Each structure stands twice: as structure tokens, then as C-alpha cells.
């Protein structure tokens, strides 16, 4: 496994991954009487699994595979990691990001393997974040050994520099969890004593028990208010200083006045509301905690997207040798090498080599693009089958990918809290209540000249005005609305979204993967009768091809496949192979012309007419004559038309955006009846189209699914992703529909207008309760226990009304 020194004769190929391995370190196992060599236990395990399930055919089908140089041959530079190591005494600790983790058994393999290295104290691999935390004793083993150990089993370690925002969110979430948990524990204890006190109010209780229970309640409520409630207290204080009153002021006012009133009641003898004070805090903290969780996810996926950009590049030095260096160290104009299967670390222009590059994450185009000398390649895309040398353009900070990440981050920050309805009204309600309380105090002070009565009446105004129902009105309806929607597979991320969805005027749809299936399927077939089983031959030939077009053709034939020998795939052109003694070829028109296949006028016309419709055309040759022409297109989804009809019925303007070419765009737009089409747009251009619409005063909903849609999704008032959207699209959208069902977009629009109207009803109720009860409190009529009851009833009405949302 030390792949450094080797001589030609000592090397063997691993049976599973075809990588070259030193004979001395290879694992040799007898399977079915034959000695097989493996480079590592992982490969052996996979081989055994495949073998024991009688799937050995897999190994026979890949005769044209090139044994690619494993990532492990890349010289890992421990120095690139050294700044992330923390040393305490002899104990060294590092966090690594591992690429190549696909499933839980990868985690298992890495953990077991690294623990076997002498000197490693502990390793924990986080399956969710692909981060490994390793501690080892510095005098027994070097970091180099550990890194090589990990890479020898096929996982590539990267230095983990930590993502500022994600770490911050994680800390915030942990902090909120502590505060909420504390509030929960103490509130539960508090409830026991409050229940006893309530019973005592009706049944009577001994004075000494009463006093003890009250004191315990006080002791239990204090940490809830001042530790758990600290975020509200400090935010309320800040907002008071800035003279902009928000919801936190209401929460603080409500809980603090109940708290202070109760303390006064211990002294003067009366009913207490410590439970009210702490329950307000507990419930609102729960909402905050859930919100922090979804924000943490958003932060993580930005970090994940940043991971698309590799941290190291293979720099080609002047002497021609390749060295692994941090991406940041690569300058404009330097040359780097990209090995097959690797992500491209920087934007650049190809100077040597040829490869098909998958740019799906940037363009949404599912077909790999052939890149040859002179073509531009982009960071984050990956080379599927060839070795490239590129000259770097710009640096790590200004790649296209980095620009997309920045756009998304900016948009998310800018979008931050829209002031809710309750927040706006709090601006009038809070000062009015405070003024009223003061007025009550002075009125009773002057008329009865009894300070205690005056104070009690003033505080009771604050208690009755306690905005429990008002505070619950919006968040509760949203909580119920979002969970109900969530059960149907619609994830709504935030309260203001329901409000915005009900105001939408324009719906913008992405083409690939949203209106269309995202996979090409066969639409036209011209069979020239050279072979009775044309499709069978085509499917057999394409079966070994990795190309999406090829897979579509394989899917078009359900029957038995024929044996293909001498299979060859020419990147970007086509495939060829021998079936039943005849040479069959399938590929582009250029490929056929290159290979001198005869194409007559009729066949040429077929090809040209299909191309004009924006279709992908595959020509199939049997021997030297053209056997058939196949047209393929990424066609409409079945549920696209009902969706479009539904949106149109709501009176929304419709628009289609795509990164694809005009021909395909026009074909699809005509089929679904959208007249407003813009084709050939890059990720940032899509976002620009959206902001132009917004500038015209439209309220825009964008539906998309790829990373290339992410900037547009954040830019839109409402971004909706669908089905198996990429992680970043999922997080930059405000609504994520998890099921692959377009009709749920119509459900979303319907349920949000319903949720919004319930919120309005709740607010009207909460306000009218306060308007009626307040005058009574001012006049000193309300007995505290009755006002407490009223408060509970008011909250229950809001709760009950919100629960109606469960039935959508």
C-alpha cells in the first residue's frame, strides 16, 4: 500500500478496480480455485459481494476500461494539512474532509482501517458531513502515514478549513437547544407546583405550604426567564434602544410583567402567573430552535457546494513533474493536470488532452460535453474519461462556481427576516399598552391615593395585555401549516413564505428536469431495413456505453441483447462494435462522415429535419451503409400540462428559462403552450431575468432543480425545487417539494392562501380579545384568576383555529 517505490515487474492489477498495486502489499485470495489479487480489503469485499451474488458478468463487460491512475498516487502533502492540526501535549488532533464516502460501510471501513494504524487514539467519521476527527499520539505515528492509509483504501482526505457560516449556525443551534431544553425541564417542574397552587385556590390550602410552593415556583421560573429567555430580553433591549419595537418586546413585556406581578403577589398574597411567564418563553424558543435547524442545513449545503471546488490542484511544475498544491496557491496562467474522474479545481482552458466533462452542476445539461484543446472548463465540473492539462484562468476566488456561491450567500443574507404582521402591529401595540399601564397607575394613585392598589391595577393591565394569543397567532398557524404541507412532501421554509406565495403574479419554470424529464427519450426512428432487428442491435451496441443518450436507446429495447465484441467508445462521437460478424456503429453525423459511411439524400434530409427540431440525432451504420436514424429529445413530463393549466387558471403569467439551445426550448414551449421563452441562459443570467421581472413589480415564483438554478431560486420571491433536486438548489429555494410530482405546486398555492387567511383570523381574534379585556382591567373590575382564565381561552381559540389547517 506504499505506492511510492515500484519497479515494473512487481506490479499487479487489482481484480476489482484495475489499479496497479505492489505485489508485496497486495491481497491474494483463492476464489473458485483461481488466485485473485486485490489492492485493498475494500476491493476484496466488493468483489466477494459481487461474486457471491453471481454478478461476475460485471467484470466481463468492462474490457475497454482503462485502468485509471488511482487518486492515491497523487502525492499528498502533509504540509497542506499541518495548519489544521491542533496539538495538546503529545496528542495531535485533526479534522479532515473525506471525499469518496458513499454509504455507511465506507464510514465503517475508514474507521476500522485507521484504528488499526499503530498510534491512532481515536477516529470518528461523521456520515452526514463526511468529516473525520482523528486523534493520534505524535511520537508513534506521523500524519503522513495516516493520510496515506486513508488514501490507500480509496478515500481522498482534504484539509478542512471549516466553513464560517455553517459553524456559526451549528453553534447557534446548540445554544438554542440548551436554552430550550432548560426551559422545558424547569417549566415541567413548575407545572407540578402550579397545579397544586390552582387546586389550593379552589380547595383551600395551608398557608405554609402555599408559601413554600410559591417560593419554589419563583425559583424554577427564574432560570427560564433569565437564562432561556435571554435572547428575547437582549433583543427587546436592543430594539428599545433603536426605538423599533418588535415581537421580542411583546414577548419580554408579557413574560416579565407576569413574572414581576407574581413576585408582588407572593408579598401581598394573591394568584401568581409564573407558569404563564415560562410557558411563553418555552413555546417561542421551540419555534426558534426548529428554525435554526433549517438554517443550519442551508449553511451546510453552501459549504457542500464549496466542496465541489476541490481544495488541491495537481500543479505541473516547469520540470514537468506534478505536485499536489492547495488551490489558493495556483496562479493565473499556470498549468494544472486533471485526472479522469476528478473534479476540476479551477477555471481554465484546455491545452492538452481530450475528455468528456460533466458540467451538469453548472449548466443543468445532463449530457457530458466534449472538451478538447482550446475549450474552456469550469471548476466543479468533472472529467469523466480523459486526462486533461489546462492553463488556469483567474484564481480560486473568482471561478464561476465561486461566483454562484457568493450570489446565493448574498441573496440569503439579503432576504433575511421580512417584518411579520405581528411585528408591524407590535410597533403600535406595545407603546400603547405601556402608556395605558402608566395612565392606570396614575389614575388610581390620584383617586384612591393607595400606591399598592394603583400598582396592582397597572400590572394587571400589563398581564391582561400579555400578548400570548397575539404571539402565538402567526407562528402556530405557520407551524401547523408547514407540518401539514410537510406530510404531503412540501417543505416550506419560513413563515413569510405562505404570505408571499399568495401574492405571486408570475411563475417562471426551468425546462430541464422541471417541465421535462431531464433524460432523453426516443421520439423518431427511421429504419432503412438493413437488419430485421434494428433496435435489438442498437440497444446491444449501446449497452456498454455510459453515455445518457446510449442509456435511452438501451431502455427502448426490452428484449434479449446480442453479444458485442471489440467494443470501442470514442469520446464525444459515438460507439462501435462487432455484432454477429458485422461492424455496427452509432454516433453523430460527424462520426459517420469521419468513418466514411455512405449517407444518401433521403437519409440526410431525415437527419436535417430532426436537427432542426432541436433533437439529438443518432445515426446507426451497419457495415458501411446507414441502417437507421434515431431522433431523441428530453420530452415533457406527464404532469407538466396539468400544472401549467392550473397556474394559468390562477391568472399567473408563465415564462420558461433554460440553459439549453433555442431549438429544444421552442419545441418544448410549443408543446406546453408557453410563449415567453428564454434559452441559452447561464446560472447568473437566469437570476438576472428574475430580478428584471421583480423590478417591473412582478412577484415571481421560480421552479427549478439544479445548481444552475440556485441563484435564480434565491433571487425569486419564492423559489421552488422539485423531486431529486441538487442539495444547493434545495437549500436556496424557499419551498422544496420532495416528491417528484408537479401537481403539488398547485397544492402549495392553495394551502398557502388558506394558511394566510387563518393567520389573519387569529390576529383579528387576538386583537379584539385585548381590546375588550383591557378596558375592564383598567377599571379594576377583573379578578386575576378570571383574567388568567380569559387569557387561556383566548390562546385556545387561536390554537384551535390554527389546527383547522391540518385539513387541507
Amino acid at each position, binding site marked *: 500500500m506504499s505506492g511510492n517505490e515500484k519497479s515494473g515487474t512487481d506490479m499487479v492489477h487489482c481484480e476489482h478496480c484495475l489499479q496497479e498495486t505492489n505485489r508485496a502489499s497486495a491481497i491474494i485470495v483463492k476464489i473458485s480455485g483461481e488466485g485473485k489479487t486485490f489492492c485493498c480489503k475494500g476491493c476484496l*469485499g466488493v468483489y466477494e459481494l*459481487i461474486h457471491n451474488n453471481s454478478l461476475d458478468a460485471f467484470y466481463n463487460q468492462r474490457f475497454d476500461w482503462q485502468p485509471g491512475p488511482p487518486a492515491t498516487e497523487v502525492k499528498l502533502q502533509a504540509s497542506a494539512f499541518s495548519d489544521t492540526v491542533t496539538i495538546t501535549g503529545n496528542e495531535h488532533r485533526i479534522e479532515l474532509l473525506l471525499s469518496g464516502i*458513499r*454509504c*455507511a*460501510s465506507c464510514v465503517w471501513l475508514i474507521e476500522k482501517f485507521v484504528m488499526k494504524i499503530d498510534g491512532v487514539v481515536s477516529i470518528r467519521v461523521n456520515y452526514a*458531513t463526511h468529516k473525520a476527527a482523528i486523534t493520534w499520539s505524535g511520537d508513534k505515528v506521523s500524519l503522513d502515514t495516516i493520510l496515506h492509509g486513508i488514501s490507500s483504501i480509496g478515500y481522498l482526505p482534504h484539509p478542512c478549513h471549516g466553513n464560517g457560516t455553517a459553524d456559526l449556525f451549528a453553534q447557534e443551534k446548540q445554544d438554542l*437547544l*440548551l436554552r430550550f431544553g432548560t426551559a422545558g*425541564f424547569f417549566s415541567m417542574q413548575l407545572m407540578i407546583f402550579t397545579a397544586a397552587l390552582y387546586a389550593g385556590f379552589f380547595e383551600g390550602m395551608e398557608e405554609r405550604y402555599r408559601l413554600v410552593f410559591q417560593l419554589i415556583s419563583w425559583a424554577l421560573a427564574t432560570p427560564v426567564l433569565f437564562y432561556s429567555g435571554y435572547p428575547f430580553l437582549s433583543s427587546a433591549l436592543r430594539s428599545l434602544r433603536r426605538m423599533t419595537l418588535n415581537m421580542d418586546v411583546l414577548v419580554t413585556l408579557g413574560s416579565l410583567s407576569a413574572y414581576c406581578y407574581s413576585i408582588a403577589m407572593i408579598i401581598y398574597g394573591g394568584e401568581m402567573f409564573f407558569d404563564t411567564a415560562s410557558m411563553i418563553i418555552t413555546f417561542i424558543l421551540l419555534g426558534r430552535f426548529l428554525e435554526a435547524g433549517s438554517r443550519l442545513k442551508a449553511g451546510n449545503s453552501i459549504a457542500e457546494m464549496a466542496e465541489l471546488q476541490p481544495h488541491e490542484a495537481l500543479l505541473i511544475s516547469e520540470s514537468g513533474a506534478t505536485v499536489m498544491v492547495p488551490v489558493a496557491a495556483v496562479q493565473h496562467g499556470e498549468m494544472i493536470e486533471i485526472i479522469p474522474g476528478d473534479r476540476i479545481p479551477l477555471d481554465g482552458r484546455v491545452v492538452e488532452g481530450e475528455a468528456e466533462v460533466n458540467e451538469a452542476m453548472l449548466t443543468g445539461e445532463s449530457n457530458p460535453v466534449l472538451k478538447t484543446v482550446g475549450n474552456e472548463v469550469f471548476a466543479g465540473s468533472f472529467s469523466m474519461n480523459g486526462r486533461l492539462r489546462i492553463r488556469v484562468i483567474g484564481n480560486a476566488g473568482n471561478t464561476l462556481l465561486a461566483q454562484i456561491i457568493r450570489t446565493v450567500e448574498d441573496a440569503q443574507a439579503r432576504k433575511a427576516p421580512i417584518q411579520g404582521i405581528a411585528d408591524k402591529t407590535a410597533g403600535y401595540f406595545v407603546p400603547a399598552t405601556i402608556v395605558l399601564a402608566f395612565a392606570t397607575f396614575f389614575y388610581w394613585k390620584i383617586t384612591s391615593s393607595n400606591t399598592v392598589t394603583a400598582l396592582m391595577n397597572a400590572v394587571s393591565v400589563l398581564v391582561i395585555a400579555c400578548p400570548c394569543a397575539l404571539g402565538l397567532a402567526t407562528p402556530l398557524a405557520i407551524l401547523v401549516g408547514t407540518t401539514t404541507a410537510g406530510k404531503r412532501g412540501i417543505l416550506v421554509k419560513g413563515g413569510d413564505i405562505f404570505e408571499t406565495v399568495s401574492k405571486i403574479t408570475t411563475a417562471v419554470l426551468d425546462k430541464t428536469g422541471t417541465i421535462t424529464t431531464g433524460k432523453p427519450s426516443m421520439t423518431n426512428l427511421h429504419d432503412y431495413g438493413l437488419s430485421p432487428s434494428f433496435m435489438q442491435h442498437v440497444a446491444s451496441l449501446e449497452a456498454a456505453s455510459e453515455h445518457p443518450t446510449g442509456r435511452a436507446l438501451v431502455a427502448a429495447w426490452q428484449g434479449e441483447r446480442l453479444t458485442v465484441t471489440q467494443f470501442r467508445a470514442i469520446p464525444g462521437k459515438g460507439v462501435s462494435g462487432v455484432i454477429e460478424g458485422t461492424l455496427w456503429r452509432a454516433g453523430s453525423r460527424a462520426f459517420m462522415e469521419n468513418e466514411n459511411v455512405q449517407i444518401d439524400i433521403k437519409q440526410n434530409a431525415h437527419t436535417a429535419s430532426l436537427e432542426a427540431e432541436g433533437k439529438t440525432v443518432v445515426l446507426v451504420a451497419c457495415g458501411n451503409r446507414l441502417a437507421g436514424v434515431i431522433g431523441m429529445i428530453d420530452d415533457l413530463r406527464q404532469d407538466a400540462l396539468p400544472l401549467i393549466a392550473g397556474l394559468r387558471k390562477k391568472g399567473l403569467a408563465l415564462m420558461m428559462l433554460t440553459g439549453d439551445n433555442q431549438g429544444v426550448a421552442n419545441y418544448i414551449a410549443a408543446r406546453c403552450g408557453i410563449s415567453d421563452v428564454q434559452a441559452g441562459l447561464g446560472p447568473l443570467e437566469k437570476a438576472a431575468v428574475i430580478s428584471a421581472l421583480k423590478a417591473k413589480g412582478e412577484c415571481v415564483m421560480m421552479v427549478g432543480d439544479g445548481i444552475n438554478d440556485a441563484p435564480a431560486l434565491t433571487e425569486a420571491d419564492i423559489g421552488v425545487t422539485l423531486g431529486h433536486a441538487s442539495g444547493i438548489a434545495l437549500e436556496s429555494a424557499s419551498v422544496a417539494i420532495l416528491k417528484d410530482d408537479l401537481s403539488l405546486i398547485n397544492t402549495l398555492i392553495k394551502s398557502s392562501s388558506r394558511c394566510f387567511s387563518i393567520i389573519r383570523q387569529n390576529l383579528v381574534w387576538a386583537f379584539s380579545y385585548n381590546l375588550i379585556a383591557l378596558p375592564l382591567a383598567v377599571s379594576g373590575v377583573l379578578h386575576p384568576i378570571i383574567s388568567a382564565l380569559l387569557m387561556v381561552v383566548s390562546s385556545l381559540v387561536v390554537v384551535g383555529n390554527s389546527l383547522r389547517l391540518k385539513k387541507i
Partner: protein
Amino acid sequence: MSSIFYLIGIGLFVGVAAWFLFIWAVKSGQFDDPEAPKYRMLDDDDEPAKAVKPIEKKSP
């Protein structure tokens, strides 16, 4: 009747103990990765024997 005070004391003690346990759990990262533990329990502690046990489908 003073037994009620003992009972209150015990009740409070248990509650506060659970609270400390919770704080310890949060601080030591028990809530950090909710994803892996459910798979981890399927792992064996020892090196797998020669016989293959299919744990997960693994793409080659």
C-alpha cells in the same frame, strides 16, 4: 406531614439531575450527528470473516 417536603426535595433533585444530564449530552456532542448512529449499530466490531455478509449495496 413533613414527608411532603422530602418528596418535593426528591422530585426537584431528579428533575435537576436530568437537566444536568441533558446539558452534558448537548455539550459532548450527542446531538451533533443524528444520521450515523442508526447505521453504526449494524456494524460488527470485528474484522468481517471470509464469508461475505451483504451490509449495503456498494457501487464499484
